[in-house]
């Protein structure tokens, strides 16, 4: 199962772009390395504000964001992005593991919720789901 998903990601993500937002440098560095193993383009930002500035000038297939951040937090960023592009595929990677956050995320139309610390299998599974959604949406547009 895992191997199939990895293969799928290897096959389809080479042309996809990711906007990754995380305020912790060490984690950001490590996670960026991980994402680059699949995605052709990975742009890493360290706060919501910076991320939105980047997002205004570029389009991304996937936005992956932390929730607790200085200046502009995760939900703030999500709201701005959704306002600009309601179809944007977004996933959250947060240490807030309460149900209340997942419910809030659903209300914001967030597509995936990945808990911290991140389990490798869950990461691959979530990325697989996101990628599938991206491809499905791309096919619908065509």
């Amino acid at each position, binding site marked *: 199962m895992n191997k199939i998903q990895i293969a799928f990601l290897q096959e389809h993500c080479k042309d996809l772009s990711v906007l990754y937002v995380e305020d*912790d440098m060490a984690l950001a560095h*490590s996670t960026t*390395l991980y994402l680059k193993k699949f995605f052709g383009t990975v742009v890493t930002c360290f706060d919501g504000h910076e991320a939105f500035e980047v997002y205004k000038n570029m389009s991304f297939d996937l936005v992956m964001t932390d929730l607790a951040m200085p200046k502009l937090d995760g939900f703030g960023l999500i709201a701005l992005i959704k306002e600009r592009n309601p179809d944007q595929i977004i996933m959250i990677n947060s240490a807030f593991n309460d149900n209340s956050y997942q419910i809030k995320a659903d209300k914001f139309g967030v597509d995936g919720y990945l808990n*911290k*610390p991140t389990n490798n299998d869950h990461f691959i599974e979530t990325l697989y789901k996101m990628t599938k959604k991206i491809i499905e949406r791309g096919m619908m547009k065509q």
Partner: protein
Amino acid sequence: MRWKNDKREKLSRILRKEYFKSIAYPLIIIESTLLVAYFWSNNFVNNVSQKALIDETKVSLATISQHTASIINKEFEKTAVSAALLKARHEEFFKDFRQSEPLSKGKYILTADGVITNRKTTSDECTLFYSNLFKDDPYRMQKAIASEELDPFYNSVLKTSKNVVQAYFNSYDSMNRLCPFIDDALVQYPHDIKIPTYNFYYLADLKHNPDKKVVWTDAYLDPAGKGWMISAIAPVYHNRFLEGVVGIDITLEKIIDNILSVKLPYLTYAMIVDKEGNIIAMNYGLEPILGIKELTGYNYTKPVNETVAKPEDFNLLRDNHSSLTKKISVLFRNKSPLEEIDDGVHNFIVTQNTIEQTGWRLILLVDQNSLLSNTNALKEKTDKVGYIILTLMALFYILFISLIIRKSRQFAGTILVPIRNLINATEALSNNLEKIKIESSGIIEIDILIDNFMKMGNELSELYHSMQNRIEEGIAQYTESQNILVHQSRLAAMGEMINMIAHQWRQPLSVISMMTSNILLDIQLGTFKEEEILENLNEIMQQTQELSQTIDDFRNFFKPDDIVTKIAVKMIMENVKSVMGKSFERGEVIFECPSDCDIEIKTYPRKLMQVLINIVKNAVDAFEISESQIKTIRITAKEQEGRLILECCDSAGGIPTEVINRIFEPYFSTKNEKNGTGLGLYISKMIIEKHLKGSIHVVNQEKGACFTIELPLNLSMEQELPNE
């Protein structure tokens, strides 16, 4: 029970007072009234009798004065009659006298300077002194010898009255025949004496005495050496020729001795004053009173050449006298028969009578003090009796009052002893709340009081004991609830700790997890690179160190803290920051010290940290619901008067005013869901006040809440309460 500054009185005092009021006071009042009556009546009787005495004396004195005046008048009259007789005899003598051959000279001597005198041959011999003024007259000796036949008359005149000192005849040619005999006539008389120049001669001449009757001289100094005297003189005419003047002398000494010595039972003074106010004679005793020295004696250092009158001092009408004398002079002028004169020292009754013969006044002065001396002595005696009665009465009262005091004490005792027992019992009750037993007093009312009190006391005692049990139960319950509270707060602290650890661990755990995922993915992808793996493993190692550090931080924080330690405030702040910093995302804890950042404090450091963390945690929580964009918590430390002042101010908008006064109450919380035990600040306050001996306050400032903690810089071990 005790009352301070009380105007109330002790019962024993009241009883004693009442005793006095009912027994002693009336007696004292009656007795003192009697005493007053006694003294008053004494005084009254004395005054009345004195007044009567004075009045009586006045009457009798008037009579006495009148009588004395008449005696003196008689005396003068008698002398005047004698003088008249003498005058008649002399006129007869001169009628018979014929100038003829001189008789045998015998005892008569003619001195070298022409004075004729005689020697004393018989006991009733009279002196003859013939001035040498007419020494050429051949009939002198004859006249001198012839006049000897007049001697028996002089002698008989001398015998008529003891007041008469001299009887004599002076001729116009200065022959003097005088009885009794003067031994040293040659020395006494000036040899050229001109007798008509003397007052006792010229006052009788035609010019001064046209009626040719007997006249009286003023007081003058006797040339014959008998001192101050007055004379009744009468002219002797022969065919209208003034042959000479006869005279009878009365010396003042004699008048004073014989006439003025009025014998009365009280001190009386007398004086004779002539028409012009000259004092002719007065008692010796009167001199110092009037301030005038009487001239009774005269020091004959030389012969008296002329009339020597009394000095002007002796005139009452002169104005240089004492006030008493002035008053007498007024009396003299007014001719008032009786008056009282008082000059402040002497108090006299004064009478005044005229001696008809001479027109002189007899003035008698009676000393009222001596008059009243008897009645005064009587008054003193009765007063003395009064004082003795007073003393005896005082003694009696002292005995009586001491008896009353004893009695009143006994009486008070019968009431007071049971009351005192009651008081002691009430004190015992108020001290111990033990059941009480008081003996019966024997007084119905007090017994009722005692019974009621004993009932009440016993009920109170029972109530007290039951209350005590309840209070003990209450205290036990309270202690238990306190323990529960402390336990809860500890649980809450642990819960928060777990939360914080969870929060702080999540990030490094995420990193570790991500590293591992990277390695796993590399293996799965077959893109396995040794360098990359080493890098990841190192990173993982570092992250685990961090995890361990976090655990250490928290474990330090929750270690029991029972020694007072000296620690830099900076260190405490570092610890607070390291514990709190990571959980305070998107915000900043700033520690600053305006003057000295190396302040050291002796305290329980972890307890202080617990409080600071609690406050910082509250601020961090407050930021979650606040709208403020700048999230800072600023802690400032400064030293002030031996105390450390820590201010912890946030910018989270402050505490709502309706709850700011309740935030230190237990179980008070505004946070409904998580972390809201409502114990944090209550426990913080307890730690600051009970354990760290400081104080904590909160106010809202412009940007947010501001907590101020004040702590002693040197906390000593003993000050701390035993740990819970």
